[in-house]
């Protein structure tokens, strides 16, 4: 009995091994491609991936590989040579002067609250007080008697850095109830909690609001949060979305960056709810 059974099992294992070898060998006839690797900001990754696909179609024989992991990783990987281009969703800091930055789009950040919350606007002082834990109840800013759930971004996210810089805050001063990573996660958190406040990219917030998510965009300093306001350049809390390189770009790197800044790319940029550079 064991013989029959083991024969069956070993036969199926042999079949598996052979099929794996067949698959592997068939993969070995690799074509040579001009390959470009990008890593970095998870905000930029879906956009750049689509730009890459459009670029590949226009330039047969090229490959644009897009990886993700956050702006800081984009900078580290570009420095280490693991990627030819890093994606960074903020301006470079003075400590990052060794890199060259190429802006491909703009984005604004807006505080958001749940639609059920009657608050219409918050000024900068109120936002600072809420984020530093000095105001813990919506009543203090003219709302109902409900505790405020403060949603903050995780360390290393460029939205966090931009937010802190604008309000001149230090991350250690912030008393957050929830720490989130991505924009979509932030929107889902606010949509699920009527008394939460957070901040996310205007583009995704506008899109989700139109799609029926119960969120409200608050704006900053009396300026209404909208992609139009960012486009016109009068929205205070906005950021540039950049590709960074070690040294001046050449060859494929150069032609890809040029493509991402071209008018052909602008349509794709807008589909991702960002603002193209030549839109002003």
């Amino acid at each position, binding site marked *: 009995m064991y013989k029959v059974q083991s024969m069956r099992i070993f036969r199926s294992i042999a079949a598996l091994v052979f099929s794996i070898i067949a698959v592997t060998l068939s993969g*070995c006839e690799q074509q040579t491609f001009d390959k470009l690797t990008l890593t970095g900001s998870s905000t930029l990754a*879906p956009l750049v991936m689509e730009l890459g696909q459009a670029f590949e179609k226009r330039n047969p024989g090229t490959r644009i590989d897009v990886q993700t992991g956050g702006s800081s990783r984009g900078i580290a990987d570009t420095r280490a040579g693991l990627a030819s281009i890093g994606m960074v969703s903020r301006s470079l800091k003075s400590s990052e002067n060794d890199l060259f930055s190429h802006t491909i789009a703009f984005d604004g950040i807006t505080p958001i609250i749940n639609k059920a919350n009657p608050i219409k606007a918050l000024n900068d002082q109120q936002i600072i007080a809420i984020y530093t834990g000095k105001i813990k109840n919506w009543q203090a800013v003219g709302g109902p008697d409900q505790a405020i759930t403060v949603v903050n971004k995780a360390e290393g996210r460029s939205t966090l850095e931009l937010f802190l810089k604008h309000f001149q805050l230090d991350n250690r001063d912030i008393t957050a109830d929830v720490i989130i990573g991505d924009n979509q996660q932030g929107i889902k958190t606010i949509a699920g909690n009527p008394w939460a406040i957070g901040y996310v990219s205007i583009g995704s917030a506008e899109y989700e609001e139109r799609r029926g998510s119960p969120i409200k965009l608050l704006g900053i300093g009396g300026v209404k949060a909208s992609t139009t306001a960012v486009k016109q350049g009068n929205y205070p809390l906005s950021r540039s979305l950049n590709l960074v390189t070690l040294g001046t770009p050449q060859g494929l790197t150069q032609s890809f960056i040029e493509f991402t800044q071209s008018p052909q790319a602008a349509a794709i940029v807008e589909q*991702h709810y960002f603002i193209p550079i030549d839109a002003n």
Partner: protein
Amino acid sequence: MVSNIKSKYAANELNLNKAKFKHNIIALAIWSTALLTVSLPLMMLWTIGVEGFPQLSLQFLLTEPTHAGRSGGILPMLISTLWILCICLVTVVPIGLGCALYLSECVTADSTIGRIVGLSLDVLSGVPSIVFGLFGYAVFAIQLGLGFSILSGGLSLACMVLPLFIRTTEQALRACPTAYRRAAEALDLSLFAFVARILLPSAASNIAIAFIISTGRALAETAVLIFTAGYVTRIPSHWSDSGRALSVHIYDLSMNVPGGQPNAAATAVVLMLLIIVINLVAHRLSKRWQLLE
């Protein structure tokens, strides 16, 4: 006297009622926990199914994604996932089987070496998967220069699955009846002959189950793969290409892509069905092999 007996009866009855009541409460509690456990996967299927099923079609399985995954299908992700799985299992099975044989045949569980290996396996299986992801990124992708590739991903995944496979295989091997071992010794069979002719065939069905459990664990993994196998949504043509796994695709669609939720749910349905099918196959195979014995 009579009243005394009567009150005793009453007290007994009261105790009996109390016991019955207690029994019922406990039974109810046990039933409701069981019901909760059953309803949890059903609820999960329901929530992703409601959103995902309308998107699901043969077209969805057989086309490439467009608009960052908001439309189009998941063919490249399916192929990448299978590739990563292949590399993972090809690495795990020989190493894992060897280690499990060593643990079950060459050392006793309470010897020093047995304890050290056992402890390190238990520690490894308790390590969060993101740690394996960062390890794979640092070692396979950067130090060994494999970059973001199916190979890096498969090997990192293998590191994570290995302890699970070794432990389950070891149990399968230890389940071999002592009588077989004694008979082998009485016949003066060499260790090799015993392992090849008696131990492995008799444990084969359970080893196959260990294999399938590991497959399921590997299929569900996201954190290990996002920094190793990567993010590229192209059909891989070589194991040095980067390829996005199904789980990474779900994560990215629901977290980074505005409007990616419906396709994320549909992909989740596909992944769940894949895992359910693998579990059913495992169940059927183990039953059939038990009948053969």
